[in-house]
């Protein structure tokens, strides 16, 4: 098949040819949707991925992403080093913190993990999740915040490196 150029009919591309591919042509407007297409090594510039479930690169188990995280210093001038989806932490007292999420979790049934450094020397510190160390009471997580304490053997204690992450 050849491309026909006519003085009266203009240019005619053969069906299925380079200039007239078979099927719908997409990508000509901003609102067109690609469905069931395979993209090989695509570069996505600031994509907005709505789903929390993303295929894995190996195996078939799904990935469930971290929904909020924070790294902060719990000693001296308590300060956040870096974070994601966290507006603030609340310093409730010695070794007693609440992480406040920027965008709330779907519910309070997320899984939260935290870790911390020891104090100077080999003095161990542990993290006790969902615990208000200042009042020695359980603190149930909410969709918007999670409270936990860093503790020595018998009492809450401030530590220099505190890390928290929430998964859902």
């Amino acid at each position, binding site marked *: 098949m050849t491309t026909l150029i006519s003085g009266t009919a203009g240019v005619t591309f053969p069906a299925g040819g380079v200039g007239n591919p078979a099927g719908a042509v997409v990508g000509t407007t901003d609102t067109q949707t690609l469905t069931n297409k395979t993209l090989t090594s695509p570069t996505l510039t600031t994509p907005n991925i709505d789903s929390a479930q993303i295929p894995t690169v190996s195996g078939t188990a799904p990935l469930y992403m971290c929904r909020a995280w*924070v790294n902060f210093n719990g000693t001296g001038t*308590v300060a*956040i080093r870096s*974070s994601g989806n*966290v507006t603030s932490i*609340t310093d409730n007292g010695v070794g007693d913190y609440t992480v406040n999420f920027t965008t709330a979790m779907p519910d309070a049934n997320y899984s939260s993990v935290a870790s911390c450094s020891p104090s100077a020397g080999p003095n161990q510190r542990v993290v006790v999740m969902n615990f208000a160390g200042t009042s020695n009471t359980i603190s149930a997580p909410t969709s918007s915040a999670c409270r936990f304490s860093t503790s020595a053997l018998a009492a809450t204690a401030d530590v220099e490196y505190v890390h928290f992450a929430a998964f859902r």
Partner: protein
Amino acid sequence: MNQRIIFPTDDGVAIIVPAPECGLTIEEIAAKDVPAGKPYKIVDVADIPTDRTFRNAWEYT
């Protein structure tokens, strides 16, 4: 962010430490993260003691 939000609690005083990357103003953080109905103050970080030896004895005035 060199500011903090303080509010009273049953056990003393709580201090809200803003996340530098959150994109909210200190007033927006206060509106969002201070428990409903609690009075609060926005203070300079320099006004918060760095010696936390008696942290649990701090009071909101």
